């Protein structure tokens, strides 16, 4: 199996994630799509690490996971807070800053 297939997979995952972020309204789903994109990027990094025979890409992938974990904490906290105050998890309802 060609190693390129990993890259194709990651591209497909990233596209699914990006489309999900743009088209879905539910904050939780958008959030999960963001995670999908991050993991697609991680897969690419690991693949390139494998191709080049170095560990750099894998190290960066760990950093990405840490960042993703932090982001989950902050993001979920925001989503829960918004849900509490506005009784809605739709991200289109949280458009107060334009005024």
């Amino acid at each position, binding site marked *: 199996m060609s190693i390129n297939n990993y890259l194709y997979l990651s591209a497909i995952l990233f596209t699914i994630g*990006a489309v999900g*972020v*743009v*088209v879905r*309204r539910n904050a939780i789903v*958008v959030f999960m799509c963001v995670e999908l994109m991050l993991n697609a990027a991680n897969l690419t990094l690991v693949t390139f690490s494998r191709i080049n025979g170095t560990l750099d890409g894998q190290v960066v992938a760990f950093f990405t996971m840490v960042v993703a974990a932090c982001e989950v904490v902050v993001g979920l906290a925001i989503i829960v807070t918004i849900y509490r105050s506005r009784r809605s998890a739709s*991200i*289109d309802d*949280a*458009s*107060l*800053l*334009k*005024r």
Partner: protein
Amino acid sequence: MVTNNGLVYLIALPLFGALSLLLLGRRADKWGHLLATALSASSFAVGLLQLSQMLGRATENRPVTQKLFSWISVGSFKVDASLLLDQLSICFVLLITGVGTLIHIYSISYMSHDHDRRRFFAYLNLFIAAMLLLVLGDSYLNLYVGWEGVGLASYLLIGFWNQKPAYATASKKAFVMNRIGDMGLSFAIMIAFASLGTVSFTGVKEHAHHASEATMTAIGIMLLVAAVGKSAQFPLQAWLGDAMAGPTPVSALIHAATMVTAGVYLIVRSNFVFDAAPTAQLLVVIVGAITLMFGALVGTAKDDIKKALAASTMSQIGYMILGAGLGPAGYAFAIMHLLTHGFFKAGMFLGAGSVMHGMNDEVNMRRYGALRKFMPITFITFGFGYLAIIGVPPFAGFYSKDMLIETAFNSGGTKAILLGSTALLGAAITAFYMTRVMILTFTSTKRWDDNQHPHESPILMWLPMAILAIGSVTSGFLLSRGSALKNWLEPLFESHGEHEELLSPMVVSSLALLMVALGVAIAVMKYQLSDVDAVAPQDVSIFTRIARRDLLQDDINEALFMRPGQVLTAALVKVDESVVDGAVRGIGQMAISSGSTLRRTQTGFVRSYAMLILVGAAVLIAAIWVVTQ
């Protein structure tokens, strides 16, 4: 030329007085006036010393100089701050310090009730120093410093009582109108520097012969503008009447005896310029002739004693300018009239001050009358000045004015007859309005209220008046005896061919006396022998009304300069608001409107932002891909 290191003291003494009185402030209140008077007197003493030394030298060695410091040195252009004392300057030095000292003495008493007397004396000393610098400068640039200095002192002293808005306005008016003349002087200096490369009197004199006549005419006309502004000549005469707002000693010193005659000094000093520029010289004569009639006519209608005297000053300076415009024949007589006028006009102004002092500062002559009994000394001293100005022999004005009329008649051509007749007619009108002043003030019936208590002034006031009165009696005779002043000043001027004699001195004198008698007779009939109203009658002819309004000089200035000036400033304000402010505001408006347009892209929807980021990233990657391919 002989160097003399004592010249600087002439200026330094009064300048020291002015500075110390101003810097010490209230601490000098008790003795400031005494210091100022002493310094002015010591400057006079230095002047006398210089005169005695000058008399001891041969004619060609009489002028002395002193170099103070090197002022401007740029390439080939060098101007030293140097003083020059010659036969002409010494006349002025003695007049300025002599009359100045007398007026200092007078002011001690006149200003004794003013809590700001020290400041007054500081300004007086400042004036003396500036005026001395004016007449002692050896170049036009040095003269210019003094010229501006006397303008400043005049402004400060006219507005001395600037708590009254009208007085403050009068001082501003004098300052602004003088500024026009000052522009003329600075232009003359610039033209002289640009075309002759020098601004010193000797330098310009050397070039006067081989420079083009157009250059000399331009310099001459600009110098005339300067003289017209400073000496209140037509058409810049409007400030002198209002300048009477200053304390009376100021009117006597600055606006009668010395500063206003600086224009005559400038023209006589620049004799080499005017001798080389006949057109400019003709203009000088015309200005002098117009002003001598103008001042005389205004003088006939004024009820304010100081304004009547101011109009008379204007007219008498017109005589001097006329004389100075007649060329080498008239220079000495212009200076002689200037000196005698310095005595009698200063004396009369001090007399007017003495009358005001005794009449609770009333200036309206229609509220005077019969003051001869109450102020005998003022009456006698004023009377001597009066006899001098109308030209009764053997008083001073007779000699000097007669000479001017005679020179005008003998200057050749139809011009001579015109000028001579104007001067003669001026003499008649002078006799009329001065007799009017005399009668209204001293001899006619009493027209003041019973709560006025006219009284003679203290000795400190009448003593200077008496000394000036002696000058009014004797100076004409002394200066003209054996052509003393003419011979004294002769070396400074180009010699000139004698003109044909149109009228002999005897004829001129008798004509002048006839005119004077006529003027006096009319005034006596009109004011002495018939009753005078205490309030100026309003049902008078249009001519009287115009003369009361100073021959419409203010109205003309207003219509010609002030109104168009206001329109111009209003237009400029509009341009400033619409164009300049418009551009500035437009830029701000542009930033705001472009900002509010761009704001629309911020929808607040997270998904559209995500879309933009995505598209942006795609475009960026595509761009990198295109570039790297």
